[in-house]
């Protein structure tokens, strides 16, 4: 039995070696190596998102964004099907580590779309960078992953080959503060975060920039994920005498703020403003009439119908509207990665696809004016690829859904928005 097995194996090896000699040899001269994809074998892309547990909707939404991006280019790159290897990163540092280790253990994986959470992104980006991959996230916003101050100094956790399409907190926080102080002309603001690095980071930058403009932060406080009763928090904020509440939260906590602030005495004339974590169809539908008059900062809305097409494809494929807000960023992250792979991939005569790892990184850094559904995207040297513009949207017609909201921009500023 054993002898037969080895004989068989030997034959195959010999056949493979012969095959390799026959084809015109491809020389890999890439600094950190190449990925060779045999004829018929898939182009493997890992998708690291949180897809189990309480934050499922954040990650699942983004997985779907990438899947639609795959469908849009016909599911293949130069004749090779795209295979998405979806891994759960648990929105935690340890989850990100394990998932990334699993991904880099497979030498066929070219790049990663993800992670959902900055906490998972920090260790994951280090592991993937050491292994020579590229990684592009649709929802990491921590300045420490790219640069802070924006475009000037490398962030603490910066890694080569790390990109993202979500806005650096530095930009969005400044944009929001700019809008509130200069456009609305308000001088007293309060802010709420929920202990998540994304919301806490945005609030920190907002507070700093708002005070830099000359405004006053009369209260800044925090709730926890899973809290339902915001009335005590809102009452405390009301007592501080604010003109605006900045609440860059997610669902469902964001909904609770909108619903319950209507019941609090003293908050009748206070303006509510959220961020892109709430730019979701389920949110607009959920707050409905009660959300009229609230503002949201977020990425630029593309012209034309590409976002509406995306929404239609989503409904068709998954039976529901997007369940969170970062599907658009994640879709663009996937699209940028696929475009870069397509650009650098070399197709052999025998159908083998060769991709240089450093070449891919270079192509990603060179991305400019990529037309995505979060606007026109250009990557900087630190990996920030989000659109140049921060826009602020006013919710005035909930019946028009998320695309109605995103088409109702009342303010826009170009990074750094100061």
């Amino acid at each position: 039995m054993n002898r037969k097995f080895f004989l068989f194996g030997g034959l195959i090896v010999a056949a493979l070696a012969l095959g390799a000699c026959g084809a015109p040899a491809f020389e890999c001269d890439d600094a950190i190596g190449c990925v060779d994809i045999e004829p018929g074998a898939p182009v493997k892309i890992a998708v690291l998102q949180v897809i189990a547990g309480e934050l499922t909707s954040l990650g699942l939404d983004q997985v779907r964004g990438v899947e639609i991006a795959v469908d849009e280019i016909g599911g293949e790159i130069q004749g090779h099907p795209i295979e998405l290897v979806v891994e759960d990163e648990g929105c935690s540092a340890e989850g990100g580590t394990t998932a990334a280790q699993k991904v880099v253990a497979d030498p066929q994986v070219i790049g990663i779309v993800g992670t959902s959470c900055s906490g998972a992104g920090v260790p994951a980006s280090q592991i993937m960078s050491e292994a020579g991959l590229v990684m592009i996230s649709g929802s990491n916003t921590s300045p420490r992953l790219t640069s802070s101050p924006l475009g000037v100094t490398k962030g603490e956790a910066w890694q080569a080959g790390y990109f993202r399409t979500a806005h650096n907190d530095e930009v969005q926080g400044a944009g929001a503060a700019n809008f509130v102080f200069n456009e609305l002309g308000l001088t007293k603001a309060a802010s709420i975060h929920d202990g998540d690095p994304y919301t806490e980071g945005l609030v920190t930058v907002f507070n700093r920039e708002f005070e830099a403009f000359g405004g006053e932060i009369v209260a800044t406080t925090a709730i926890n994920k899973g809290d339902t009763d915001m009335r005590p928090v809102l009452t405390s904020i009301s007592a501080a005498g604010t003109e605006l509440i900045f609440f860059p939260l997610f669902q469902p906590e964001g909904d609770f703020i909108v619903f319950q602030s209507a019941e609090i005495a003293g908050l009748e004339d206070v303006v509510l403003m959220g961020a892109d974590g709430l730019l979701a169809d389920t949110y607009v539908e959920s707050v409905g009439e009660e959300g009229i008059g609230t503002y949201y900062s977020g990425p630029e809305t593309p012209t034309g119908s590409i976002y509406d097409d995306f929404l239609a494809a989503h409904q068709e494929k998954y039976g529901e509207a997007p369940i969170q807000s970062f599907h658009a960023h994640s879709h663009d992250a996937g699209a940028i990665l696929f475009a870069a792979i397509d650009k650098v991939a070399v197709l052999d005569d025998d159908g083998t696809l060769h991709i240089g790892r450093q070449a891919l990184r270079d192509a990603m850094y060179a991305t400019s004016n990529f037309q995505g559904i979060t606007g026109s995207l250009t990557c900087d040297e630190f990996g920030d690829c989000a659109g140049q513009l921060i826009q602020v949207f006013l919710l005035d017609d909930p019946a028009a859904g998320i695309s109605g909201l995103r088409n109702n921009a009342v303010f826009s500023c170009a990074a750094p928005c100061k």
Partner: protein
Amino acid sequence: MAVSRSPGTPALEQPIVITAFPSSAFDIRKSIRLGLIAGLILVLISAMGLVESFDDRMLIDPILSLGYVLLFLVPLLVGHIAGRLPPLLEGMPAPEHRPRDVLGGLVSGTVASILLALLVIATPVFDLRTLFINLSPTLVGLLTLNQGLASGLLLLVAIGATLGTIGSALHLLPDKWRSALVKSVTWVLGIALLQDLVLQLLRGLGLSFASRLIFTVTGGLSIPATVLIFGILLGAQLSIKTKGESLATRFARLPDSRKRRTLYAAGVLLLVVIVVLPQIVGPYISEVLDLVGLFLLMGFGLNIVVGLAGLLDLGYVAFFAVGAYTMAVLVSPSSPGFAPQLTFWLALPFVVGTAALAGILVGLPVLRMRGDYLAIVTLGFGEIARLLAQSDWLKPFLGGAQGILRIPNIPVGPIELHTPPQLFYPIAAFVALAAYTSWRLQDSRIGRAWMAMREDEDVAEAMGINIVTTKLLAFVIGAILAGFSGAIFAMKIGSVFPHSFNLIFSLTVLVIIIVGGLGSLRGVALGALVIVGLPELLREFNEFRFLFYGIILVVMMRLKPEGLLPRARRAREITEEERAQDVGMPVTATAADPGGT
């Protein structure tokens, strides 16, 4: 799904008179009832999107996906259950099966698949997708095997009926053939399912070329490989003669001098395996082993608190967090408040100190609480730890939501341990230390005091055991072990974030020690492998991980309530109890209740 008690009941010495005698396995009402339950399960797994999302995962390329395996497994199993003869009495052999008994499986399988077919028909008629979002056209296509609605559904029912029949017909095979067949199929599916693990192992052993022969480029076993593996396994199963004695009994027969030598040899072998293991299995499996090791370290600690001292602690993660944060603050250059930038080894004594202090802080107020009061208060402490780490209040010291980054690697002489295979060694060393400590403590004076306290606190106190110090000592030792685990965790990840230290974490450690067998060190080790290792290897199940995790917990507890590897003393107690029950049991009652437990 009735699960009968494990067949390990000892043989009875007195003869028992049997008064009721079921004549055949075929009972139409029972078969229909089983079929309905199976049908509901089929409907559930289809409507939950399991079938569709697992259809992408090929097990045998290109004919069998994981989705279809799930779908086919249910009628097969229910057919098997329907064809089972009702046990006359626990531990007694069932009477011979007859071909007629196969009818039960046929009925169950048919009923189950008809229920699924009804779902397919109802989906477009009532527009069920507005309610159950996963009832997509793709799913309907899958369930009708892409043969169109009418013929597809007929085919579906036919397959269900056939599988049900096969399931019950398995009983007709001789025991040896049946077990060989079932085991071989399970193994083949297992290999296909654990494709990643197999690939990593092959790569580590330098057999990468073999992986090409076994698995196809798009994933899944190739058909020739499937046939080959199945053939080899079946042949091996049928040719191997079962050995009469277990290793343990043969070991017990050895003379003392050889016993010791065998033990030493085993120890050396184990050491060699531990040294070589991470190099062979590669970085990803090492990563999983590292995680298992960290949980094992905590498991040993919690085993002292819960298993020996009987103090139900649901907030064990607090000590883990204390360890991780102490380490992070002391070693990271970017620790926000106080950053002495010590090395790992210099910071370790401080970890012991803070963990012990935390143990006392938690232990003091709960000294007089018992049982579930203790449980909820410790749960509270776990949450308090996380909330404080996350709070803006302590942000100047602990970094708040943004955590602490840039934790350097563990230095050992000139090398820095960084990759998962390297980190395996310090983790293994700490686990060994914890195992040794637990083992020595178990039968020491304090260990016996803990157990006495667990059994009855008042009596223990009356016997002169100092409850205050005994309890506090349990908390402190448990806290220190968790603190070690947290400290290594921080070094391994390179950053700490408060979100890591949640309630699920505490519960996982508790689950490990209970599933493994409370109070048993081997059990805790096996529990950590099963509860932490297995889900990591089965990442295919991804978004459904917690679903299977939950179901497995329930099934495991029902099958082995005393744990996988219970402590010898406990195991004896349970069997004795069972024997006592069986002997004293009125026979008619058993015969009237054929469902078992």
